[in-house]
């Protein structure tokens, strides 16, 4: 074995000592370069965090960086050097995100509640803009720099200023003006042609140039790309009482500790902020009319789906394994290869392909097998559930077939023979002897299969997208949704606003269910094993 380390005294030392020796020069070099790159990146991240004044994350990043350096620069602690890279990702993207789910579950995080109160106040003031009735007209030219549109505004008194959304108006003395005194060009910017203005109308109408950092001062907006007017917030904010007052109607909106500004009659301003809401998401899940009914149905279906999927795939797999467990059956290999093809086919594609096969109008199944009948395979609540189970059977039986074949073949032949000697029928041999022995070995896999199907997102989402929808809710949740697709729908769906808090609360419920089931069933398996042997 060629080695790079210098021979000599090391050869006579016991191996334990060698481990503590410095590595070869090459190894040292690689180590320094890699660690240097990691540190350089860490410093870059920390500078950015410092500039953004995110102190908590900064401290965390610093601690992690020091820890990494400590692990690799100290002499001992060899296992940590090998484990650190994997554990780094595991801790952040598996452990931390679980804990973070737990935290989000206790907040109202979601659409309209995704930032701090200060940001919310700012956003409300910017969004609730109304044109000041006697506003002077500012003549504007639309400029572009780095893909961002700016307004070059000429005040009635001839002053030319430039600014864009988020960048307050600033006087631009270097601007080129035309004969009427209107600013037309500015160095570093490109003036838009008329056609471009038309093409980018929506973006240009959205430009809101504040006069200063204080939103109360108002802002400039243009309605046609050539003239702009002064807009002021229609809501005035009083910091001392945390209250918005509508300048027209005089209605007041107060912070009532629920993460939003509310009027007396309960009406809310659309932008709120993130607060901790305790167990509200959990109580909401089980008491809100809009969610409770669907949630209970979804839970019931999740269990049904997972249990029936495991049982049906196992039953078919076991039956097939028995049928083909004959050494001299002709064509066994061909059957086997063809039958495991569905298992090899990507699950997400299977869902999509079957959704085409089962399409009521144009699908193959209705048109070829049922002579053009309009059977609503995917849109009838009961049939959709059956379809989902059949497709999952199609996807899952080959796995169980493989598992059972293996387990059957590994059963000792003597058992079989002894039973036959005693005159037991084939069926009796199977139920009384083979099946119990088989269950011992496949039980862990059945549990794993249950846990997998409990969160079998792809089949449901690709085949039915959860549909057909429930009638008793506004959320886009339906009869074939399982818990995990419901979480996805609530967090990222298009139906109602995104509600990360509620979605995380549901995730936590799934966590708990999976944990309990795994714990119980693994204990059961142990018991089964003890009984049998």
């Amino acid at each position, binding site marked *: 074995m060629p*080695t790079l380390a210098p*021979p000599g005294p090391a*050869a006579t030392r016991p191996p334990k000592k*060698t*481990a503590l020796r410095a*590595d070869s020069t090459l*190894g040292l070099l690689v180590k320094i370069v890699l660690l240097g790159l990691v540190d350089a990146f860490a410093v870059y991240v920390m500078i950015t965090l410092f500039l*953004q004044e995110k102190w908590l994350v900064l401290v965390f990043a610093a601690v992690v960086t020091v820890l990494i350096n400590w692990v690799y620069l100290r002499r001992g602690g*060899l*296992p940590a050097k*090998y*484990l650190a*890279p*994997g554990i780094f*990702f595991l801790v952040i993207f*598996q*452990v931390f*995100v679980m804990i973070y*789910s737990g935290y989000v579950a206790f907040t109202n995080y979601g659409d309209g509640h995704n930032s701090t109160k200060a940001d919310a106040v700012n956003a409300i003031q910017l969004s609730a803009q109304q044109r000041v009735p006697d506003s002077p007209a500012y003549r504007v030219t639309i400029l572009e720099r780095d893909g961002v549109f700016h307004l070059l505004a000429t005040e009635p008194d001839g002053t030319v200023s430039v600014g864009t959304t988020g960048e307050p108006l600033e006087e631009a003395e270097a601007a080129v003006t035309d004969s009427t005194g209107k600013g037309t060009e500015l160095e570093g910017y490109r003036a838009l042609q008329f056609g471009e203005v038309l093409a980018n109308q929506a973006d240009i109408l959205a430009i809101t140039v504040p006069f200063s950092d204080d939103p109360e001062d108002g802002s400039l907006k243009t309605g046609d790309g050539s003239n702009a007017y002064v807009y002021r917030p229609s809501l005035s904010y009083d910091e001392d009482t945390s209250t918005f007052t509508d300048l027209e109607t005089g209605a007041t909106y107060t912070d009532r500790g629920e993460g939003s500004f509310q009027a007396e009659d309960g009406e809310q301003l659309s932008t709120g902020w993130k607060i901790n809401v305790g167990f509200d998401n959990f109580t909401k899940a089980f008491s809100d009319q809009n969610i409770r009914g669907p949630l209970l149905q979804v839970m019931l279906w999740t269990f049904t789906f997972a249990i029936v999927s495991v049982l049906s795939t196992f039953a078919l797999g076991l039956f*097939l394994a028995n*049928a*083909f467990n004959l*050494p001299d*059956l002709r064509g066994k290999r061909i*059957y086997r290869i063809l039958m*495991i093809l569905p298992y*090899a*086919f*990507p699950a*997400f*594609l299977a869902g*999509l*392909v079957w*959704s*085409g*096969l089962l*399409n009521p109008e*144009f*699908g*193959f199944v209705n*048109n*070829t097998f049922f002579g053009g009948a309009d059977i609503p395979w995917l849109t009838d609540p009961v049939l959709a559930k059956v379809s989902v189970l059949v497709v999952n059977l199609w*996807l899952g039986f080959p*796995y169980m077939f*493989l598992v059972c074949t*293996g*387990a059957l073949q590994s059963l000792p032949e003597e058992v079989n023979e002894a039973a036959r000697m005693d005159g037991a029928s084939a069926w009796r041999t199977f139920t009384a002897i083979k099946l119990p022995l088989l269950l011992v*070995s496949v039980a862990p896999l059945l549990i794993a*299969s249950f*846990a997998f199907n409990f969160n079998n997102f792809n089949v449901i989402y*690709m085949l039915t*997208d959860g549909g057909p929808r429930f009638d008793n809710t506004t959320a886009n949740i339906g009869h074939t949704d399982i818990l*995990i697709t419901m*979480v996805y729908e609530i*967090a990222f769906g298009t139906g109602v606003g995104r509600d*990360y808090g509620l979605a995380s609360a549901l*995730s936590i419920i799934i966590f708990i269910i*999976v*944990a309990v089931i795994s714990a119980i069933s693994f204990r059961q398996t142990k018991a089964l*094993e003890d009984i049998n042997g």
Partner: protein
Amino acid sequence: MTTFIDPQAVAPAPTQSGGSGSVPAQRKRSFGQWFRHKGWRHVVGVVTTVFAVFPLLYVLSAALNSNGTMAGSNALFTAFDGGNFEALFSDPTRPFGRWFMNTMVIGVVTSAATVFLGALAAYAFSRMRFTGRRVSLLSLLILQMFPQLLAVVAIFLLLNAITDVVPWLGLGSQLGLIMVYLGGALGVNTYLMYGFFNTVPKSLDEAARIDGASHVQVFFTIILPLVTPILAVVGLLAFIGLSSEFVIASVVLTDPESQTLAVGLYSYVAQQRSENWGVFAAGAVLAAVPVMALFLFLQKYITNGLVAGSVKG
């Protein structure tokens, strides 16, 4: 599907002497006897095979029939042409070629990194004794019961926060997605590799140590070459799993140019289920072929592994 592999199963197993030849030839049997003994098995085999294969034949046929619509795809294998494949690669709003490359790149990089991280950890668990070793192994087993997709909301929010600090690692970034996937690199993979590493005799690395090799050299020049089978299996299984991953990819990758096959093909069908059916089928065939080829290639290992793992509990 969850798969379990036992390390021993991946190693070349001693050939089993099956029951071949033990069955005496019985020439004269009535059809009834033959059917009771074997015939029904063929009936079962044919029926199941049809059930298993017809959806696949249907996609293949639809892919080759440039008629295009779903209704037109129902007559199996009536037309053969490459029109759908041409259409597939010429649609700029749905860049199939890019999706394919993205899936390959993300899959290959992630599974390579997964294998490397897993092998490092397995080496530590198999060859070193340290406090917390048992606890760490057990925690890995427990953690892998909770799939990452359960925390998809938190992953989205975390990446959203990362976007503000390091934009090229945040939402919309493939590198960010790979990072997230690496969170699952340990777990069951380490367990599989750990078992396999244990089958490599320790006397080998001790001999090398005495010859003056460092622990790094033992890892790279002695252990890794001897455990290539499990590295290949873990890597390929990771790749197969990743190529079907939809939930996290759909949340992280928003720009069509950067999406993977799972996300892209879903949007293909979700928007217009029946009109573009032929083109989708062509895409499905191209997306499925590499994965199925890999799977069938691995089949022997997976099957043996499933069995050995299950029998030993």
